[in-house]
């Protein structure tokens, strides 16, 4: 056990799996960083340094740079996975999905079904999401809802360093294509993380707060904000459960439903755009399956139906935060 950042936790999980299984390979733009040049190799280890150190340890046969050709190199991961490797490949920002989505949603995701259950495609696509980085409209989106919509994909959104390591280890060992969403604002956050490998199973929610009055379901980085909000609400006499689904596909709908059956109230916190979102998804599942227990309207806290603005003042306003969650929680309690 030692303090590790979200970045280090992910890096360590990958390194340990690479040591364990020689079929695990890593590639992406500048995942080494420096290929072909006269300076340092492993100069970058990915644009925010997550894969740094893998190249020196595992060498150029297992850790590779790529041209800026996402369709080709992510499709190559699908093809490699279907033929016996276990690639961990990087789609730098999920905002770039638009140049390569076909290889993910029509190829990797559908092989198994289209081929009558005969394909196994164990690949992990690591990708960064989320606002708050001053990176504007094309580098700040939280598009996990789109991936969650697609049958055949698994979608993982770790909300802390501990979660990140355990979920990444599971993702690499998993036999299905996994999209692993890393919140770019969280890389430097630290917590105690075991040194040995461990897995966190997919489809099992975790509870970060337990309470009787209200269930808050929060996605990824929003879990922190939900915790803050819960702590604040506690002081005002409102006792909240905070539930982190960890994976949105598969999703632990049972735990969500059970929790709402206990509390009778639901707030969903999702930093994505509101329409056809995870907020919609969780709300609808509860409205269908735990209706009788509901004491008031479900509240959704999301970003607006608006691209992510550049100006810091606007971006800060754009994202959900603890205050907005508290306000929604009070609305949920009022009715």
């Amino acid at each position, binding site marked *: 056990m030692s303090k590790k950042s979200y970045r280090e936790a992910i890096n360590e999980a990958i390194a340990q799996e690479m040591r364990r299984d020689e079929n695990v*390979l890593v590639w992406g733009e500048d995942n080494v960083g420096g290929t072909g040049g006269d300076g340092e190799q492993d100069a970058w280890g990915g644009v925010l340094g997550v894969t740094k150190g893998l190249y020196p340890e595992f060498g150029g*046969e*297992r850790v*590779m740079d*790529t*041209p800026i*050709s*996402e*369709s*080709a*190199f*992510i*499709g*190559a*991961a*699908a*093809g*490699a*996975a*279907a*033929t*016996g*490797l276990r*690639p961990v490949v990087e789609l730098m920002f999920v905002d770039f999905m638009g*140049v390569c989505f*076909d*290889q993910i949603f*029509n*190829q990797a995701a559908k*092989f*198994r*079904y*289209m*081929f*009558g*259950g*005969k*394909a*196994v495609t164990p690949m992990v696509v690591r990708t960064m999401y989320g606002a708050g980085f001053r990176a504007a409209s094309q580098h700040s989106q939280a598009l996990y809802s789109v991936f969650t919509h697609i*049958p*055949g994909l*698994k979608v993982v959104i770790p909300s802390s360093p501990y979660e990140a390591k355990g979920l990444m280890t599971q993702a690499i060992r*998993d*036999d*299905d294509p996994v999209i692993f969403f890393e919140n770019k604002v969280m890389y430097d956050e630290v917590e105690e993380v075991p040194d040995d490998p461990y897995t966190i199973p997919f*489809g099992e929610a975790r509870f970060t707060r337990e309470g009787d009055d209200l269930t808050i379901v929060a996605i990824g980085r929003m879990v922190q904000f939900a915790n803050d909000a819960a702590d604040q609400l506690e002081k005002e006499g409102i006792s909240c459960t905070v539930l982190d689904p960890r994976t949105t596909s*598969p999703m632990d709908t049972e735990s969500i439903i059970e929790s709402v059956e206990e509390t009778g109230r639901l707030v969903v916190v999702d930093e994505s755009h509101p329409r056809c979102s995870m907020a919609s998804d969780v709300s609808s599942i509860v409205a269908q399956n735990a209706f009788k227990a509901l004491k008031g309207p479900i509240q959704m806290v999301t970003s607006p139906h608006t691209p992510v603005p550049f100006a810091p003042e606007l971006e800060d306003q754009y994202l959900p935060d603890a205050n907005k969650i508290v306000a929604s929680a009070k609305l949920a309690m009022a009715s």
Partner: protein
Amino acid sequence: MQLSREELLESYRVMRTIRDFEERVHEEFSSGGIPGFVHLYSGEEASAAGICQHLSDKDAIASTHRGHGHCIAKGCDVREMMLEIYGRGEGLCGGKGGSMHIADLSKGMMGANGIVGGGPPLICGAALTAKYKKTGGVAIAFVGDGGSNQGTTFESYNLAKVWDLPVIFVVEDNGYAEATSSKWSVGGTQTDRATGFGMPSVAVDGHDFFAVHDAAGEVIERARNGGGPSLMHVKLNRFFGHFEGDAMTYRAEGEVARLREEKDSLKIFRAHVTKEDLLSNDEMDKVDQDVAKLIDDSVKESEKAAPPHFDKLETDVYVTY
């Protein structure tokens, strides 16, 4: 490259099987027995056969929407293919894939593909597996002239070159992408494009099994020996419409009839091997009979076969979920 009598006969069998398969599917589709989008490979047999003759199960191919010929040449079970095209539970993909998604990974057949340009990225991955695991395998992506304009295809050219992969890109140029002529839609030439990415390339008459076979032998050998990717521009023609149901009014009057007369790869093959005394007409006639029976049996079985059990609808989405 010299082929043994057995190999020649086997190649003839492959071509004849493709032809008969496709002509029969055409008939059955017309009479309403087969559902869906079906794209036939008749006329292009020498390409699949000439190339895949060099391959074994450790080699991978990725195909296109027009995939039956590639499947057959790569060794997929013909009976199970027919069952699949009929959407039957015993089909090669359990009836879930259909004509555009036939695959058999155990044979190195990584799938027909409903997405134009879908295959080249995948094949880079298969090639990487072969290279990393040192299997000696090569990986071949078939694309059409139309698919040769898809960005995914170009990216794959570059990735294969930069990663130095044992890949061959085969552009099967049958003159049309749907109804659009490749004379118009392709800027530059296929071989110049290969040069643009630093790849060697070769253009070949795709009606001539021997020309294809020779050219393929060279590029495949290079790839197997660590010489990196190449491109083949295979010029050929399709005898049917883009898909079943296409009235082909975009083709010149009499074009298909002329092609069937002059550019029939099976006739050209037979003329060649008999003239050179490599095979006898009798031997080939025997193959024709065997194949006819195989196809006929497959159709008959497929017509009667059961659809997938209804509880299969939601299986096979994940390994675990």
